[in-house]
């Protein structure tokens, strides 16, 4: 049985933890609104970009000579995985969910005896992945000091991916991130960006225009595809930022509630043992008086 003093100290410490988690929840809620807004505002750009590329793809008659970024190298040996996570912890299962999905994929790729390279974005993901797959990590990005994620950061990652592709370092590129569905649900996702996945888009869009291209479509594609990579990375970063705040908000809300429950329980314990000690003293006094 802990002493009264110990209980008092514990109650105090739980209460101050509760204050911290409550404050973090408020901050996350405020940031979430902003992050969610920018994720939603960013969606049209990437969608329209996909659409244009799709329209361009349709008009390519000679797939043999199409840019490699679009159709791939024709091989399936080397993989590049880009894992996007947060730079900060205390956000529930956010980082672990992405890493879990990524690791399942890594295992599959290695199991098929294919070459694996990893780029991590965000320090939390790097910490989790380097334990098992450290030797495959070829580069890590971290935007810890940036307050808001802008297109420049995504472009930096995009350019890195493309330069690796041009050096023939990989055949396929997959990015892992959390898709923001709503505040409580974030879905970890694996998206293949090289070669571009156009299958599911083709069904949704039947309209067929014959476009006028200026300059030639090859040139446009060459200009557009690298941009598309950066755009997809940017979209993933935005979705991730919103998911991180959402996830943190839910986690901190739970933590606050748990701390409240704990305080209630400890207070009852405290009162009980206080009452017990009073009763004990009374009995001692009474029995002492009786014996006189």
């Amino acid at each position, binding site marked *: 049985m802990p002493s009264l003093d110990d209980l008092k100290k514990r109650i105090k410490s739980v209460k101050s933890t509760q204050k911290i988690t409550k404050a973090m929840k408020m901050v996350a809620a405020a940031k979430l609104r902003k992050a969610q807004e920018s994720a939603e505002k960013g969606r049209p750009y990437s969608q*329209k*970009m996909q659409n*244009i590329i799709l329209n361009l793809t349709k008009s390519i008659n000679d797939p043999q000579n199409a840019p490699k970024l679009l159709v791939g190298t024709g091989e399936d040996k080397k993989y590049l995985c880009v894992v996007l996570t947060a730079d900060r912890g205390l956000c529930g299962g956010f980082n672990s969910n992405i890493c879990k999905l990524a690791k399942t994929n890594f295992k599959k790729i290695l199991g098929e005896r294919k070459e694996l390279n990893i780029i991590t974005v965000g320090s939390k993901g790097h910490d989790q992945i380097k334990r098992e797959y450290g030797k495959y990590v070829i580069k890590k990005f971290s935007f810890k000091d940036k307050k808001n994620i802008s297109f420049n950061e995504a472009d930096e990652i995009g350019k890195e991916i493309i330069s690796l592709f041009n050096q023939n370092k990989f055949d396929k590129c997959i990015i892992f991130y959390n898709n923001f569905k709503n505040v409580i649900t974030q879905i970890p996702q694996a998206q293949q960006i090289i070669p571009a996945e156009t299958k599911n888009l083709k069904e949704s869009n039947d309209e067929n225009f014959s476009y*006028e291209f*200026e*300059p030639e479509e090859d040139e*446009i594609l060459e200009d557009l595809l690298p941009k598309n990579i950066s755009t997809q990375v940017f979209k993933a970063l935005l979705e991730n930022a919103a998911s991180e705040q959402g996830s943190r908000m839910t986690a901190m809300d739970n933590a606050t509630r748990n701390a409240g429950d704990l305080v209630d329980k400890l207070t009852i314990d405290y009162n009980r043992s206080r009452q017990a000690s009073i009763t004990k003293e009374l009995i001692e006094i009474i029995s002492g008086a009786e014996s006189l």
Partner: protein
Amino acid sequence: MSDKFTVEIISPDQTILKQETSEVVIPSFEGQMGILNNHIPLITFLRPGIITIKAEGEKKYYVEEGTVEFSNNNLLILTSTAKDVANLDKSQINDLIQKAEANLNAQSTDKERYVASYKLETLKEISQ
């Protein structure tokens, strides 16, 4: 039939503009291009220059690069660098001019030099 069509300028972080217009002039890669209602479907990309949107009053946007699609009387401009010319002040422009001048000499290929020289020209035009 109305002679209007919709123009949208979208940057990665937001929709900058969406409105009805009767004519848009874009700095396409191979030269200035005026777009009117019922233009045939078109895909092209931009060099540094000024997008002029003619509705009631003119709107001008400075861009460095971008992709343009026109279909179904809908003009879509995707760019990460669009800036409203009215909001650019002198010191900002002069900064950009200096950078562009330094940049011009550093380019190696013809294509890069072509783009850089247009950037400089456009900026000088705005500053006047």
